[in-house]
């Protein structure tokens, strides 16, 4: 078994990053000009890394499958971004953000990485504001904050319900600035299909030009995968239709270990599924839980309308079960609680797979405050509701509109119906402290890596991590590797490794087209999604996981014998693109089940029904499972498990409690 | 070396020329309308002819006339250029385009309305201006001024011509209905407080001025003013 070295610097937790950064080998400016770096993906992590590396003087090639880097799925993040600024003077600090994140991740993240994340979190806000990102402000002109789940301070910065959009457009503008200066070459509508490895080091990629179908060879001194998460393995998720695991999976097959694949985040507040036609699920930001109260009827199978159920017949189950955090418990806890209520028969709506998110009380409360401001004393309820609705509209207007569009119901009048849905994957390519995978020269950033969130990510931390990796971590740590690569000449593109990688990519595309079966790609994707949701979803058990593995293996056989992909490979062919992605999802799905089966404990988003406390909370097994599972690909869809022990030296590991 | 660069040739610059010349032409309309309105005195055209005489002999006005034609020419030439460039920006048209769902028909038809106005102008200028400047007005009135009024009375006996004038003024009204506030927008004068005022004023201006113009041939044809 290969030794997994996370390369965590020596010294005090609080000094590790500062010391490392100051002692990191540097590359001098004239050498930087001749070093090429390939960045795959243009979301928060990819765009910020590409822009920063180009600013530093490297030659950068950036790839995205969308028609513009501005469309990467980071754009859809709604609620906010955390930073330990303590602007609200409510006791926040780097340590507290670090602590909340480790605890929120159910003690399955690396201390050193998380502390670094907390340290640079404040720089991100500064950088974004300097770029002109219009974060929300108060009348005094200073930045505003709101609360998110799993914390008791207000440290979330936001831009209405479009924080991800604004942050991404900031990074995108920095990227386009470099494109304009000719320092970044942008390849849109390109999909990475292979990593090229020469003498054990990543030296390039094979990318398919989606417009022409042409396979292109691109060489570089290092390859950065910033390709996002793999939530679409479930078919229905809040991810974009194009979000995929292909880049990460190809890297995995070339030697990069895959970390904690079974850690998936199920977001508690999504719009419920309305029918078989559904292609994706839409999130209702966690920030809504600031002002919404979650409840179900106390009576089973209650068919009354929400407005007809009196107050004392409502079960505010989160407030009942977790009085300290109430509606602001972390996502995994909130999701499971919703599932528990629905499974027990208290669900609402047509499908009975939904709970209410009710804004009435807070609308009235805001209205009362507004009335006071406007010198209306003793306002009646109607006035309060009217004024309060205005406040709610300003805070969450776009989310409410979105809800109304999708469901056809007015959330200002009726409580929202919500249900958990797949949202984020904490697992990803295993990386060391420098964000390098087990293949030298191959890095993974943002959601594509496994690093900072443990078994559950706290709200508003994904944006923080993506930008931390891209702006403030990788541009430093990559110097350590590149400074040793100065002597390496660029790999000629007719090198056998390129030829072989291209041939293998081409063979797969040809195979898809040659099957000429009867079922579409989506048919298999939906089937895979159903298996994953049923067997490896919000709750898992040994029997189900074993069944899941068998079913996925069967599905894989059918896929490769009965797939139908129309068109050809030398043109724009979205079905062919999807086929490649789903083929990889099927293999990944199997690994996820294996990982979930291996982890005989419950932690964060990974809930094994066999391992729970009497109150139904996740029951960790720190003695046997305080490790990162890092899976090595052994060929032919077989995997070998490696373990990276997690040491907690600065934090007391405890049963997570939000009561 | 600092220069104006593409200040006028850029897309915004071209619109600036349209906006400024447009507003200038609007100011001309006011003057023209005022002079024409002198017929209301109904004194057989004596006051009107006096106004016309002033306009024809005052050197400032004569100088402005040159500017007016230059402005008009610029407005027309630039207008046509814009129409053709804008058509070229969409070589393939939509099979179905529901423009009325998002904009007023006259705002999308400025080129057409402008062309109608141009045809009218050619007729109008050849009827009155050419005569008063070059071929000469045949008679004089009691004050010894050229009797332009008599020419008008004569001209507007033709119902077809009256109809042309009225239709042209309808075109002008729609042209102004968009053009007036559009010019301000192009000049960058969009302000939450003032824009509603400009729009309101523009609306009434676009109705009243063409209406007054249209009334002149009508009242003359009907013989209300002699």
């Amino acid at each position: 078994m290969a030794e997994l070295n996370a390369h965590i610097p020596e010294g005090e937790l609080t000094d590790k990053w500062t010391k490392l950064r100051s002692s990191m080998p540097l590359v001098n400016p004239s050498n930087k000009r001749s070093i090429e770096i390939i960045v795959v993906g243009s979301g928060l992590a990819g765009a910020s890394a590409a822009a920063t590396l180009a600013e530093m003087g490297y030659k950068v090639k950036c790839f995205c499958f969308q028609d513009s880097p501005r469309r990467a799925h980071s754009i859809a993040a709604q609620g906010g971004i955390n930073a330990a600024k303590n602007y609200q003077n409510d006791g926040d600090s780097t340590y507290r953000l670090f602590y909340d994140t480790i605890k929120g991740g159910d003690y399955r993240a690396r201390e050193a990485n998380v502390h670094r994340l907390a340290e640079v979190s404040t720089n991100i806000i500064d950088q974004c504001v300097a770029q002109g990102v219009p974060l929300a402000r108060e009348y005094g002109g200073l930045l505003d904050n709101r609360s998110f789940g799993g914390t008791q301070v207000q440290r979330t910065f936001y831009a209405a319900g479009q924080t991800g959009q604004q942050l991404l457009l900031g990074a995108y503008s920095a990227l386009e600035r470099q494109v304009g200066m000719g320092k970044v070459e942008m390849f849109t509508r390109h999909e990475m299909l292979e990593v090229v490895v020469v003498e054990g080091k990543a030296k390039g990629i094979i990318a398919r030009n989606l417009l022409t179908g042409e396979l292109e060879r691109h060489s570089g001194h290092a390859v950065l995968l910033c390709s996002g998460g793999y939530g679409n393995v479930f078919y229905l998720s809040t991810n974009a239709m194009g979000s995929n695991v292909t880049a990460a999976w190809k890297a995995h097959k070339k030697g990069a270990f895959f970390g904690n694949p079974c850690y998936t985040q199920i977001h508690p507040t999504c719009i419920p599924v309305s029918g078989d036609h559904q292609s994706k699920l839409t999130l209702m930001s966690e920030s809504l839980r600031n002002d919404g109260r979650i409840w179900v009827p106390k009576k089973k199978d209650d068919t009354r309308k929400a407005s007809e159920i009196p107050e004392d017949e409502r079960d505010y189950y989160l407030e009942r079960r977790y009085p300290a955090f109430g509606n602001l418990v972390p996502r995994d806890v909130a999701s499971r609680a919703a599932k528990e209520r629905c499974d027990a028969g208290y669900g609402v709506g047509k499908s009975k797979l939904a709970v209410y998110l009710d804004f009435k009380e807070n609308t009235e409360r805001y209205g009362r405050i507004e009335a006071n401001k406007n010198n209306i004393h003793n306002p009646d309820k109607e006035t309060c509701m009217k004024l309060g609705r205005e406040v709610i509209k300003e805070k969450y207007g776009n989310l409410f509109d979105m809800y109304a569009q999708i469901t056809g119901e007015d959330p200002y009048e009726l409580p929202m119906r919500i249900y958990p849905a797949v949202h984020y994957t904490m697992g990803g390519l295993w990386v060391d402290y420098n964000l390098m995978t087990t293949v030298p020269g191959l890095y993974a950033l943002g959601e594509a890596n496994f690093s900072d969130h443990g078994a559950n990510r706290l709200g508003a931390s994904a944006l923080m991590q993506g930008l931390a990796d891209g702006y403030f971590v990788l541009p430093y740590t990559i110097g350590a590797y590149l400074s040793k690569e100065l002597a390496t000449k660029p790999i000629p593109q007719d090198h056998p490794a390129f030829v072989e990688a291209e041939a293998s990519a081409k063979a797969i595309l040809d195979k898809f087209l040659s099957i000429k079966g009867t079922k579409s790609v989506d048919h298999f994707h939906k089937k895979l999604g159903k298996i994953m949701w049923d067997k490896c979803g919000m709750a898992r058990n040994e029997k189900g996981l074993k069944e899941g593995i068998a079913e996925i293996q069967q599905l894989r056989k059918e896929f490769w014998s009965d797939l139908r992909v129309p068109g050809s490979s030398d043109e724009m062919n979205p079905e062919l693109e999807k086929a490649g992605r789903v083929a990889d999802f099927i293999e990944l799905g199997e690994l996820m089940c294996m990982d979930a089966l291996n982890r005989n404990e419950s932690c964060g988003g990974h809930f094994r029904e066999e391992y729970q406390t009497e109150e139904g909370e996740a029951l960790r097994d720190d003695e046997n499972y305080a490790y990162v599972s890092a899976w090595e690909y052994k060929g032919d869809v077989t995997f070998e498990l490696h373990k990276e022990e997690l040491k907690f030296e600065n934090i007391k590991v405890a049963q997570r409690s939000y009561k | 070396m600092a220069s104006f660069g593409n200040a006028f040739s850029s897309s915004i610059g071209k619109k600036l020329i349209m906006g400024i010349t447009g507003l200038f032409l609007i100011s001309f309309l006011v003057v023209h309308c005022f002079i024409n309105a002198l017929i209301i005195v109904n004194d057989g055209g004596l006051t009107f002819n006096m106004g016309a005489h002033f306009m024809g002999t005052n050197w400032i006005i004569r100088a402005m006339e040159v500017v007016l034609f230059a402005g008009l020419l610029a407005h027309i030439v630039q207008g046509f250029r814009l129409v053709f460039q804008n058509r070229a920006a969409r070589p393939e048209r939509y099979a179905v385009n529901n423009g009325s769902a998002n904009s007023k028909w006259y705002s999308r038809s400025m080129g057409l309305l402008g062309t109608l106005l141009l045809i009218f102008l050619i007729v109008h200028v050849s009827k009155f201006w050419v005569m008063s400047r070059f071929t000469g007005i045949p008679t004089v009135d009691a004050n010894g001024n050229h009797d332009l009024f008599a020419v008008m009375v004569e001209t507007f006996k033709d119902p077809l011509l009256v109809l042309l004038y009225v239709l042209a003024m309808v075109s002008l009204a729609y042209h102004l209905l968009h053009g007036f506030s559009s010019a301000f927008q192009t000049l960058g004068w969009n302000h939450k407080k003032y824009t509603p005022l400009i729009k309101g004023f523009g609306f009434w201006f676009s109705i009243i001025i063409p209406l007054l113009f249209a009334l002149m041939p009508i009242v003359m044809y009907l013989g209300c003013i002699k």
Partner: protein
Amino acid sequence: MSTGNMNLTLKIWRQKNNKAKGGLVDYKISEVSPDMSFLEMFDVLNEDLVAKGEEPVVFDHDCREGICGACSMFIDGRPHGPKEGITTCQLHMRSFNDGDTIVVEPWRAKAFPVIKDLMVDRTAFDRIIASGGFISVNTGNAQDANNLPIPKVQADSAFEAAACIGCGACVATCKNASAMLFVSAKVSQLAQLPQGQPERYRRVQSMVAQMDAEGFGNCTNTGACEAECPKGISLENIARMNRDFYSAKFVSEESI
């Protein structure tokens, strides 16, 4: 496979590639559920086409929640369809009636050439941003975010301009295929923030020059862009950009 009861006729623009000649093709689709989104209805259609061995309709789409700006269909003569303030992916079939005929075309503009079927090339927008739609601040150069108080009204107004998703509906609907609303949204966002001041007049000049070079038409203030913008970007931004452009050309001594 779908569960609804609506029957529709679709007239969809099909075009093999940029060079080929395209045309409207009729498709019948049945059992459409009113709860489906417009794109999910296209998914169903494409499943049918694949099953029949025909080539599915190609269209851009990604997030399907109205924020990425990828989807771009001209539906019954309007970008993003008949409803206001939403993108195509947010349009639901309950906005149509059983028996309707729906015409779907790609965005049409010289600067947005058709790639295939309903998919167009919008990289002109990226080039406009690359020409100046940014604040030149390298990573690590920032001061503390609260050192620069910005009045809320101004910050909100900048945010409203920044809400643009770059979908191109403004260009698609403009009778002149003008990109002024898109360009002005970025110019205006940065011009209203103190951070954007140092490059304010350079920015507007370079972005307008790039916009013109891309072959977009000229703005004639019809207001169609504002009416059709899924994010409600205001015409005020265009006026603001015009002002800045004149200041840059006629007041500033720097020329670019």
